[in-house]
C-alpha cells in the first residue's frame, strides 16, 4: 500500500469538500428540482419533462471554482487530482444534484490523458465555464472500446451516440468514433445544426439523457490518430471512481434518511427501528455503504498516488458501488413502507438515480469480470 494513510484527504481537500457540501445544503437540491417535475408524473398522459438545469446553481459552482478543480493549472484550472474530484462527486450524489459538474469532472480526466493541443484547448475552455458531456456509448451501452456506433470518415461524424448524460446542459460533446485506426475522440459543438439531439424519456429524475445523431458533423480530433481507446482506458479508473463516489454519497443519504425515518415512525407501539426486521437491514445498508466508500477513497488515492494499481482499485470501487446502489435503493424504499413508494418522498428520487448510476460505466458483474483478469 503506497497510497497515503488518509487516502490523500489533506486539509485543502477537506476544506474543498466542506465548502461544496455547505453550498449544496443551502441549495435545498431536491426541493429546487420539484417544480420542474410538477405535472410530468403520469407516464401515460403526463407532459414531457424538461431537462432540469439550475443555471444559477451552476453559475455559483463556477464562482466557487469547483468546475476547474480537476483542470491542470497550465490550462487555467486548479490542478487537483482525483481525490479532490471524488470528494465533489460524493457530495453531488449525496444531494442528488442535476449538475453538469459531474460530466465536466469526467471530461477533465479524459482530456488529461490526451497530449494534443485540441484537448488542452478544450480544458482551457472548460476552465472558463464551458460545459462538456460524453458521447461514448453505442446502443448496447457496453463500454468495450469498440462499442461506439459513431463513424468518422472524410472529416465528418456519422451515426448516433446513446445514453449521453446531461446532454441538454452541455455546450460541447466529447464523441468516441470509429476511425481507420481504431477509436478516436472528437470535439463537437452541441449547437451545430448537423447535431440532432433526441432527449430520452428516462426514469431518473435528476439527470437528462439523450441520443445524439451526427449528420455529417464537423468534428475536431482530441486524440492522436488511433489513440482514443488508450486515452479512454487510462481515464477509465477515474470515470469508474467518480461514478462510484456519486453512488456512495447517495447511499449515505439513503442510509441516514432510512435510519431517521425508523426513529420517528411508530408501529405497534414502538419506533420502527425497534424491530430487528427494520434495524438489521438498515445496518446492512451501512455496511454496504461503508465498504463502497472505503473502496472509493482507495481508488481515488491509487489514481493519484499509485497509478499502477488504479485500474484494479477502480473496478473494485464500482463493483461494490453498483451492488450497493441496487441494495440501498431497494431497502430504502421497502423500509419507508408506503411513504417511500410515493412521488412526494425524496426516497424515490434517490432510488431512481441509484438504479441509473448502477449501470453507468458497467455493472458489478462487468467490473468483476474485468477485475478477475487482474488477479
Amino acid at each position: 500500500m503506497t497510497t497515503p494513510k488518509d487516502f490523500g484527504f489533506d486539509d485543502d481537500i477537506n476544506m474543498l469538500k466542506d465548502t461544496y457540501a455547505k453550498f449544496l445544503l443551502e441549495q435545498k437540491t431536491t426541493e429546487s428540482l420539484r417544480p420542474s417535475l410538477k405535472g410530468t408524473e403520469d407516464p401515460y398522459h403526463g407532459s414531457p419533462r424538461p431537462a432540469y438545469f439550475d443555471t444559477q446553481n451552476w453559475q455559483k459552482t463556477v464562482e466557487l471554482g469547483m468546475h476547474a478543480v480537476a483542470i491542470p493549472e497550465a490550462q487555467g484550472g486548479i490542478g487537483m487530482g482525483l481525490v479532490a474530484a471524488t470528494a465533489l462527486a460524493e457530495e453531488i450524489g449525496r444531494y442528488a444534484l442535476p449538475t453538469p459538474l459531474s460530466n465536466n469532472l469526467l471530461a477533465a480526466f479524459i482530456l488529461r490523458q490526451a497530449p494534443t493541443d485540441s484537448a488542452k484547448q478544450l480544458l482551457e475552455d472548460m476552465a472558463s465555464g464551458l460545459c462538456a458531456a460524453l458521447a461514448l456509448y453505442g446502443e448496447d451501452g457496453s463500454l468495450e472500446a469498440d462499442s461506439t456506433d459513431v463513424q468518422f470518415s472524410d472529416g465528418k461524424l456519422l451515426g448516433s451516440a446513446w445514453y449521453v448524460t446531461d446532454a441538454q446542459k452541455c455546450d460541447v460533446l466529447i464523441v468516441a468514433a470509429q476511425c481507420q485506426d481504431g477509436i478516436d475522440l472528437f470535439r463537437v459543438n452541441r449547437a451545430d445544426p448537423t447535431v440532432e439531439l433526441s432527449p430520452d424519456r428516462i426514469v431518473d429524475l435528476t439527470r437528462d439523457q439523450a441520443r445524439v445523431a451526427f449528420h455529417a458533423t464537423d468534428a475536431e480530433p482530441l486524440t492522436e490518430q488511433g489513440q482514443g481507446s488508450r486515452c479512454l482506458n487510462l481515464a477509465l479508473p477515474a470515470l469508474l471512481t467518480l461514478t462510484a463516489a456519486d453512488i456512495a454519497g447517495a447511499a449515505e443519504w439513503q442510509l441516514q434518511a432510512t435510519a431517521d425515518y425508523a426513529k420517528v415512525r411508530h408501529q405497534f407501539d414502538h419506533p420502527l427501528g425497534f424491530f430487528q426486521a427494520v434495524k438489521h437491514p438498515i445496518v446492512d445498508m451501512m455496511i454496504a455503504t461503508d465498504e463502497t466508500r472505503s473502496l472509493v477513497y482507495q481508488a481515488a488515492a491509487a489514481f493519484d498516488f499509485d497509478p499502477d494499481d488504479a485500474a484494479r482499485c477502480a473496478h473494485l470501487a464500482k463493483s461494490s458501488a453498483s451492488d450497493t446502489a441496487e441494495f440501498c435503493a431497494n431497502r430504502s424504499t421497502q423500509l419507508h413502507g408506503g411513504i417511500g413508494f410515493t412521488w412526494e418522498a425524496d426516497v424515490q428520487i434517490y432510488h431512481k438515480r441509484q438504479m441509473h448510476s448502477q449501470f453507468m460505466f458497467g455493472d458489478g458483474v462487468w467490473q468483476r469480470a474485468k477485475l478477475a483478469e487482474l488477479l
Partner: protein
Amino acid sequence: MSDKTLTPEQAEFQDFCRAWLQENKPAPHPTPLPQAAYEVTDPSHLTYLTEWQAKCYEAGLIASDLPKQYGGHGMTDCQQIASNEVRSAGVPYFINWIGLGMAVPTLLECGTEAQKETFLPPIFSAEHIWCQGFSEPGAGSDLASLQASAVKEGDQWIINGSKVWTSLGHFAQYMLLLARQDKNDKYGGITYFLAPMDQPGITVKPIHKMTGESGFNEVFLDNAIVGDHLRVGNVGDGWKVAMATLTSERGAGVGVGAVVGESPMAVMQQVIQLAKDTRRNGQRVWDDPVWRDRIVKVYERTEASLYNGRRARVKALNGGAMRIPLQGKLTGSEISQSLHQIALGILGLKSSLYVGDEHAPANGKWPLGYMNTYTGTISGGSSEIQRNILGERVLGLAKSK
C-alpha cells in the same frame, strides 16, 4: 390437451372456457392499459375493463361455483378451471379486484343474507366498483391502530377520519371501511362497514406513486354517513371480520375469479427471451454464465411457486393447511422483485428508458414493473409482517409485537 384428472363436467367446462375466451378476447384498447387493475385512472380504460368483466361474468367465468341467489352460476369445482383459463388466455385483468378478491369472501363469510343478495351480483358484473378503507396515514402495517371514528346516531353511523392507499377510490361506489366505535379497546373497538362513496362527506384525492402513476388515493371522511344495515358483523367485531378479508388478500382465500394480469411464469419467459434478445459486450446476455445463472435461479423459484400451489392441495404433502398458502404473497412478491431487478440488469443502461420513450424495450415495461413490485412487498401486509405471520401462525414461534 386436457388435464386427465378432471371430471367429464369439468372437462366440458374447461373446453367451453377456452373456446369462449378465444372467441371473445377483446381487441386491445387504443392506449395501453397499466400493468395492474389498481393503477387504472383513465375513464376510458374503466369502461373497457368494466365491459370485459361483465361479459366474463355473464359467460360463467366469474362466480362459477356460487349459488344462484347470490348471482352465482351454481356449478361445482369449476371456478379454479375458469380462473386458470382466464390467467393463461392473455386477456385483460378484472377491474373490480377488491370487490372480487376482498368484498366477496368477506360478505360470503360474515355478511347478512340481504347484504349478500344486494351486493354480490353488482360486484361480479363490475357495476359496483369497490375499494378498501383499512389503512390510515399514521397506521401503516399496524392496521389495528386506526383512528377513524364511528359514532352511532339513530340507525346511522357518522364517520370521521382519513384513509390512505385506497386503490380505485376514485372510481368506487363502495368502500370496505374499518372505523373505531371505541377508543379504549384496540382490537375490540373496531367495526366493519360497507360505505357508499357517493356522498358529500367523502372526498377522494389521488396519490402519485414513484412510477408517476396514480390509482392510489387518500380518502377524507368528514361526517360521512353509513346506515346500520351496512354494518358487517357485530359492533366491535370489525377486526375479526377484517382478518377474514386480509387472509384472502394474503393469498389464502378462495378465488371467485382471476384478478391478476400476466402469470409469473409468463413474465419469467419474457425475461429469458429478453436475455436472448439483448446483446452487450459482443454477446447475448443469455450467453454470459453469470447472468444465466441468476436468471435460472429465479426460474427455479418461479417453478417452485407453481408446484407449491399444487402441493398446497395435497394433504399428505403440504405440512398443514395454511403453511403453503400463507407463503404465497411473500414469495410471489419477492420473486417478482428479484426477477424485475434481473430484467433491469439484463438491459443495463437501456433500463433507463421509460414508458413513452420510443426506444424503451417493451415501452418501459421493465423499469415500470420493477418499481411496481414494491406494491407487492409493501402493501397488504409488508414482507416483514408476512414473515411474522408465517413464523407465528405456521411455526408457532412467539409473537413479535
